[in-house]
């Protein structure tokens, strides 16, 4: 309890010291709200086309303008939040489980487990990550689910390494030895002694990689993988608007791109802020 109070106090200190982190917390709440309630709040149906109103610039009626089919871009941008945010969260949670467990096992058991996990991580790192993600989606099939899997796989080495390092330093720690001496099995120690200590670091890692996960997913859908039109999604909306940039209809690509950028920016700042809270030593 006192630890929680201390953490809260430190969190308040970090936010007050660094208003940018506070801003990013606010933005994060906005994104979560848009993801949860967006479809109920938007002024227009994101899928309803109306060719008489096609390619309208931003106005009071259409805040972000309309696209070539007359769909309201503001509504589409807001509704897309759920899908983009969902893909990022799902992939980060997936890699948190895969990479976290593999890394903890590698660091705790050492030996062959360590070597195999290390080799897998090295092999993934031997690829340019976005290119590998492309290859995985192409091979597994062109679906949103596979975008999640591909994004998780390319992030695997990062999580596995962090978890491995954290588990490794704790392998011989006093409290682990104490647990061992009081007759706990290795697996029990792994789950009850090591994991709880590694999870906070991995949570920070999650928020640090959220931004990259969103960028990766949007990049894949920008080149036509995963999400299919007319589903509103930021990457594919930018791709649809790209053709109109050269003729001056900037708003079609601009607003979804801006939403993407703000989301990534928010997650990056949030990750830095969260790292300061969880690990005060690494403050820069």
């Amino acid at each position: 309890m006192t630890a929680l109070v201390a953490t809260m106090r430190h969190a308040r200190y970090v936010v007050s010291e660094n208003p940018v982190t506070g801003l990013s917390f606010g933005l994060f709440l906005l994104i979560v709200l848009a993801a949860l309630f967006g479809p109920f709040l938007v002024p227009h149906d994101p899928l309803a086309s109306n060719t008489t109103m096609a390619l309208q610039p931003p106005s009071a009626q259409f805040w972000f303008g309309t696209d070539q089919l007359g769909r309201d871009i503001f509504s589409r941008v807001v509704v897309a939040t759920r899908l983009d945010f969902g893909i990022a969260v799902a992939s980060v949670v997936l890699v948190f489980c895969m990479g976290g467990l593999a890394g903890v096992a590698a660091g705790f058991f050492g030996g062959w487990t360590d070597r195999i996990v290390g080799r897998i991580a090295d092999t993934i790192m031997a690829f340019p990550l976005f290119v590998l993600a492309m290859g995985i989606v192409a091979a597994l099939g062109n679906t949103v689910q596979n975008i999640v899997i591909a994004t998780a796989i390319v992030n695997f080495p990062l999580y596995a390494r962090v978890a491995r390092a954290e588990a490794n330093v704790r392998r011989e720690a006093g409290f682990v030895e104490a647990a061992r001496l009081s007759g706990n099995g290795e697996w029990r120690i792994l789950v009850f002694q090591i994991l709880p200590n590694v999870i906070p670091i991995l949570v920070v890692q999650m928020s640090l990689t959220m931004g990259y996960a969103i960028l990766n997913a949007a990049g894949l859908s920008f080149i036509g993988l995963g999400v299919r039109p007319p589903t509103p999604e930021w990457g594919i909306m930018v791709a649809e608007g790209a053709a109109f940039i050269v003729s001056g209809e900037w708003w079609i690509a601009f607003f979804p791109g801006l939403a993407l950028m703000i989301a990534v920016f928010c997650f990056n700042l949030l990750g830095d802020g969260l790292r300061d809270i969880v690990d005060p030593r690494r403050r820069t």
Partner: protein
Amino acid sequence: MPTLILKRLVMTIPSLIGVVIVTFLLTRALPGDPAAYFAGPAASTEAIEQIRKSLGLDQPLPVQFVDYVQALVRGDLGTSLTTGQPVAAEIAARLPASAELTLLGLLVSMAIAVPLGILAATRPGSMIDHACRIVTTAGVSLPVFFTGLILVYVFYYLLGWAPAPLGRLGIFDSPPPTITGFYLIDSLLAGDGTTFMASLKQLALPALTLGIFALAPIARMTRASMLAVLSSDFVRTARACGLASYTVVVTYAFRNAMLPVITTLGMVFSFLLGANVLVEKVFAWPGIGSFAVEALIASDFAPVQGFVLTMAVLYVALNLAIDLLYGLIDPRARMDA
């Protein structure tokens, strides 16, 4: 140095083996029917069976792997369904376009990021330090395809300074005689100033897009390592010896600070090669990235596989080059070998 090269070469072998195994697994050992993938979406059952036979997909997996490796050794990456051309030839023809773009992008970002990082580190708290911080925080949040489109809008549509984003040369220009495949170099070698300028104009925006993309990690690393080096013992010694500030900053601090930056380049290349695909799509650049994207849309798998393999091998080679460059600067790395 020769032992270092040899040792690093040997160290790339496991990576290459891993890359080959992964690209093999991506096609053969995954759920679904690989023959159907290679045959494409419109193929009939007989066509799929025929492909299965011709690719040896009816053989056990180890046999298939041996076949796959043998084909790779022959430089055979399969045949593209859409163009009917061997994938290896297509990739070889398009690689220079991608390489020229990526390398120029890297050059642009180094030219901006390194001085920015150094100035920020030598003047902490100054305007340029704040500028550097903004660039590094905002830079990593910019989706590369979005940056590209904004540049097109501003410099092509609004200002009219840049040509239309449609490939390596304008419609009325003809490519220079192929020597390196890099239009900038080839046109210079041919003494053709017009073509040089034309291809430079086409390259400017996509290279700048990639440059902005790679700016953040390089500037951030330069600043951080320069700060660390400037407060190190040996720079203190150099200053206590009264060496000229140029000598202290350039000969003593900068060369040491570059070592972590060079290491970072590995990660930067990983991002650049990926971003390259997106930038090629935005600027209709006829490189291997847009080749792979076209094939992806058409569910034409052989080019995608060839592309992934080529990129991975390129990346391994680039990492090797980075290692060697590091060894060239740091005598300690030479001694380890």
